[in-house]
């Protein structure tokens, strides 16, 4: 079924009775060419691109709960390509390009909104670092501009310019950055993959891998064994727990990142804003809620909830730059489990076990990466060669001494 205004008109006049399921609920087949473990954004995107761009359709996506129940349904919906290093920036630029055509591509309105992202800076050293970053963005054609205080005052007069502990001195501005309706991304990819025959298997938890003399030949699941020529894991926060079923230790820790939304408000924040002297970033959803977040709690956890010190730290950051939001009420807080890697950058790679592939280590950058992650993973799975923009996202990069450490925080996941 193709979606468009006419269809809505027809359905509206006939009591909306003609809508059909957005994806089927099939039973598992005994064997597939590729079994994708994880029905989150990245898994569904991988299935979508494999089936729509790389001509592979004998594919299953296995999800232990309901699709989109992980970080794709729990994040703060930001998209951007404002990275610094060669290992990252070209990859995120590809992602941004894919976002830009996504809705027409999969015929689903995910509300990709390029309202711009404003990274505030508060010191000369930060300005210089942002200049280096902004120039890297230009080297990949991502664009961007360095704004001074005067320009920001025009754009966002409600920021605290005159009474701030860490005065706003300028910002890195990326007009192509913005937000996307996160749940719709999962549903759109699922719908697009399902229409090509991909089996989406919900409530199907992987309990083990079928590894026969060094080769992975399938998975054990709560809905029975499924054979596969290739098994592609992308389970974000559950990476440690799932890959341990294959006996692998990873350069990854699981941490919780809290997210927050306020009560609905009339439009007041046109773009995305991030604080440079504390942990706070915010945008306003189309529904009117201020969607914001900050730093991870900082301790290993698989619990999708956080604690008060970080809640307070985030709101302090908010009040530091936006003293007008004091009377806006925080409506809901929740947590997502982040696969924090040793250098803050992800992996899209084969493992040492033939037929077993791994995609993870997204830290809290996973959502914006969804299309490129799916596209590059699909490329790797179908051609057995990494996509050109993902050649550095390898599991052995620490052995080789080539971390991709944007922050320079070193091998301590909770600092990235």
């Amino acid at each position, binding site marked *: 079924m193709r979606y468009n205004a006419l269809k809505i008109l027809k359905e509206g006049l006939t009591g909306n009775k003609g809508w*059909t399921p957005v994806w089927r609920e099939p039973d598992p087949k005994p064997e597939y060419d590729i079994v994708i473990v994880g029905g989150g954004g990245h898994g569904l995107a991988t299935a979508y691109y494999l089936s729509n761009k790389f001509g592979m359709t004998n594919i299953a996506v296995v999800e232990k709960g309901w699709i989109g129940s992980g970080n794709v349904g729990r994040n703060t919906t930001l998209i951007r390509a404002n990275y610094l290093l060669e290992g990252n920036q070209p990859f995120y630029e590809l992602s941004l390009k894919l976002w830009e055509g996504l809705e*027409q591509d999969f015929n689903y309105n995910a509300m990709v909104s390029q309202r711009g992202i404003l990274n505030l800076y508060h010191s000369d050293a930060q300005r210089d670092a942002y*200049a280096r970053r902004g120039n890297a963005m230009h080297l990949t054609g991502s664009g961007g501009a360095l704004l001074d205080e005067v320009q920001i005052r025009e754009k966002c007069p409600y920021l605290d310019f005159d009474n701030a502990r860490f005065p706003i001195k300028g910002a890195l501005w990326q007009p192509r950055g913005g937000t996307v309706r996160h749940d719709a991304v999962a549903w759109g990819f699922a719908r697009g993959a399902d229409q090509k025959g991909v089996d989406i298997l919900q409530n199907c938890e992987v309990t083990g891998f079928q590894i026969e003399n060094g080769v992975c030949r399938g998975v054990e699941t709560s809905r029975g064994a499924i054979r596969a020529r290739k098994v592609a894991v992308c389970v974000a926060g559950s990476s440690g727990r799932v890959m341990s079923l294959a006996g692998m230790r990873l350069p990854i820790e699981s941490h919780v990142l809290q997210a927050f939304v306020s009560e609905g408000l009339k439009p007041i924040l046109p773009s995305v804003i991030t604080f440079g002297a504390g942990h706070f970033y915010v945008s306003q959803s189309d529904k009117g809620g201020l969607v914001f977040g900050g730093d991870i709690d900082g301790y290993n956890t698989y619990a999708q909830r956080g604690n008060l010190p970080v809640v*307070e730290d985030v709101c302090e950051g908010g009040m530091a730059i936006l003293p007008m939001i*004091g009377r806006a009420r925080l409506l809901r807080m929740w947590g997502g489990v982040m696969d924090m890697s040793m250098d803050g950058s992800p992996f899209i790679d084969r493992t040492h076990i033939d037929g077993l592939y791994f995609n993870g280590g997204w830290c809290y950058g996973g959502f914006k990466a969804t299309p490129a992650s799916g596209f590059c993973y699909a490329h790797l799975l179908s051609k057995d060669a990494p996509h050109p923009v993902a050649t550095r996202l390898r599991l052995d990069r620490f052995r080789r001494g080539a971390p991709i450490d944007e922050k320079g*925080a070193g091998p301590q996941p909770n600092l990235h």
Partner: protein
Amino acid sequence: MNQPNRIDGGQIDRATTLKFQFNERWLTAHPGDTLASALLANGVRLVGRSFKYHRPRGIFSAGSEEPNALVQLHKGAALEPNTRATTVEVFDGLYATSQNHRGSLEYDFLAVNDLLSPFLSAGFYYKTFMWPRAFWEKIYEPVIRSAAGLGRLSGKPDPDAYDHGYLHCDVLIIGAGPAGLTAALAAGRAGLRVILADEDFRMGGRLNAETQVVGDMEGAAWAQAAVGELTSMNNVRLMTRTTVYGAYDHGTYGALERMTDHLSDSGDKPRQVLWRVYSKRAILCAGATERSIAFGNNDRPGVMLAGAVRAYVNRFGVAPGRRVAVLTNNNDGLRTVDDLRAKGIEVSAVIDARKGDYLVNTTGRKGLKSVHLNNGRRIEADCLAVSGGWSPNVHLSSHHRGRPIWRDDIAAFVPGGELPPGMIVAGAANGTLTLASILKEAHETAQRIATDLGKSGPTGEPPKASDEDFATAPIWHINKGKQRAWVDLQNDVTTKDVTQSHREGFRSVEHLKRYTTLGMATDQGKTSNMLGLAVMAEASGKTIPETGTTIFRPPYSPVPIGAFAGRARGKDFRPTRRTPSHDWASENGASFVETGAWLRAEWYARPGERGWRDSVDREVKATRTGVGICDVTTLGKIDIQGRDTAEFLNKIYANAFLKLPVGKVRYGLMLREDGTVYDDGTTARLSETHFVMTTTTANAVLVFRNLEFARQCLWPDLDVHLISTTDAWAQFSVAGPKSRALMQKAVDDLDLSNEAFPFMACAACTVFGGTPARLFRISFSGELAYEIAVPARYGDAMIRAMMAAGEEFNLTPYGTEALGVMRIEKGHVAGNELNGQTDARMIGLGKMISRNKDFIGAALLDRPEQTRDDGLQLVGLRPIDANVNLTAGAHFLNPGDPADMAHDQGWMTSVAYSPELGCSIGLGFLKRGSERHGETLRSFSPIRAQDVMVEVCSPHHIDPEGERQRG
């Protein structure tokens, strides 16, 4: 100004009359009124518009579960959106307005959405607005955004103050209804430290709204008596207007106390205090919330929960209507009939859904006029009291891993699964819905906790009461007739949206919520989630527990962001650290810059200078040709003592430290275990067992932490002891060719000749006739230089004395900018170079690293990618055109190469104008840099619209041999 619907009785102070405004209309109320009860008393029924269809809405409940009656309070900067009229206490001068309408509340242009509703069904926006692409940001989205949202923010800084606080108790009792009061009495009598918190301004919960009897008193009276006894116990803290909003780890709870919201004048006290409560146990006595029944047009102003109707009649002395119809699926709802009649209010119909009677429609767009029965009868009513049964308030029980479980007998979910450790649920919140059992359960729960915690004081008897008849039938919605039946009043979710969601495959509860927005409004679906779940269950032919459960996320009810931030805003966002010479500096034209938590002088403006460059150039010249002084107190200082200190430092630093002689200072390089440089500084040896380490300003805390890790976790048996002395010493750098002459004046009897006190020497001494001091001969500027430290309490006197003593040498104070210029001229690395991505090879210190010892970072120095021959190396840069000012962050490209990442050669880390060289200079990292001195490169900075040619040179722009500092 009479109140047409005010009736006798209730817990309000009729002796006092308050004036308030709603939509610019002056009305009256009494202390004890909420805005909702006051509006009803004044006959105001239409108070708001719904979120999506802008349907006229009235007051639906009498508590924090209110989905409809959201208003804005105050005006100007204090404007407060989305406030529940049912929880606002009226005070003299209260100003309230309705929200979410274009045009007046009565005539809202956006009500047109209601007519378009067939095309605005669940998720319609996912299916269109995609063509042409550019239209989304330009047209569709702005229109949708301006229609969406509820209330407004003023756009001005919140004028009120908020505070935080910390409380500790044996048991936190959440909710002061019959269960909470009973539990508190028992726990208090037993001698436990008790905190009893309730969101209401009057304790008693449902007892205030019902006519039940406790002991031999009216429930409300008993509640006040209980409060009286609790007030007399000094081990009990009573907190009204306090919402326990979240359950966190290990018995920690978040609570918001509204301190001055209900007052006309806050008296300069914080508006609200956000408490962090640490408890050994918690009893959840949060009661239950009544739910509605879905039927055609069940959202009219005047359609109200039955329990709310009783609350307005019994507690507030207000008649919500003059001809009230009652619709119920349980016996509790039927009590509404008696309470209304007791107040002489006409009950125009009693519809017991269990008898097969039901409603198919209502009339009265802006206020209920009549209700339509299935038998075709049409009954006049200006108020409909609906009871669909009660849902226990399980919210906090599900904040961790708790998953509520279904109970058929009460047709509701009760707390289940893993509750937050230490939490016990009692009373209605636990599904115990009749009074006598509630009181018994609460009393016994408190007793059990007292015994657990070893308190055996007499707890007394639970108060006597009778168990009313509570029979309920699971009747959720009436799907007869064409009219839309509302499930979620605030987000305008109807039964049709739920069935469509099922049709489209969004069948798990979480998909249902996300697709239809059911329960995503400001009430988190307190009155609607159960209905939605029931309708979904019916559509999928499953039972309710098979379909899913209702879990909630913090906060229980919305909490202002300002309250979470507390005092930390504006200048108080974070503490400020000041250097000992701060006052003197501000007296002498200094401007200050934030350096982490510190404020440092960045330069000292002199009269006649046209800008900072004039000041900085002057300070640099004066220092390089004469002598300058700079406060360097902010550098981290760590006092390290113990027999094994030298051995310890030898493990910490990448270069050798074992044989540092007493009386000498050495530059040290610290690596992370992955081989990356993370800090550098000098360490002085004052005695065999006593060292003083300096760190960069930025890493002082981190280095200290890592040293503690090394001495406690890695080498626990070394005799090494640490204490920070950063704040203890006021330290000044005195630099320039005349610094020796000046220091000789300041220091008491110590020979400073190059022979007696050479480069990198240090000594304890006294200055200005006996003040204890430490002198180090180290240089960051590259000049002959000293650092002199005195106890911080002498810091202010010291800078003044130095300036006096230095007058004859034209001693010039310099700030961080001049410091920066001189270190760049000298080619010393700082934060811009040591950014956590840098190894020793890159900064030309590879040879300094000791290869014959283990130290932190020793093992991972030589991985293939670290030893590439095209690795980045530190270089100096000069513009080919001497008039060009270089900019940091520029990337280097070989002339002729395309400007893309594949051809990136490195970047400019730091730049400065060198008064000595008369041109702009830079430092940067360049592939194979040290082999490329003399080459010409493009310095490419599109972000600053700069693209200039530069020449690569040595990073040591001046005095490369270092003669000055040794002279």
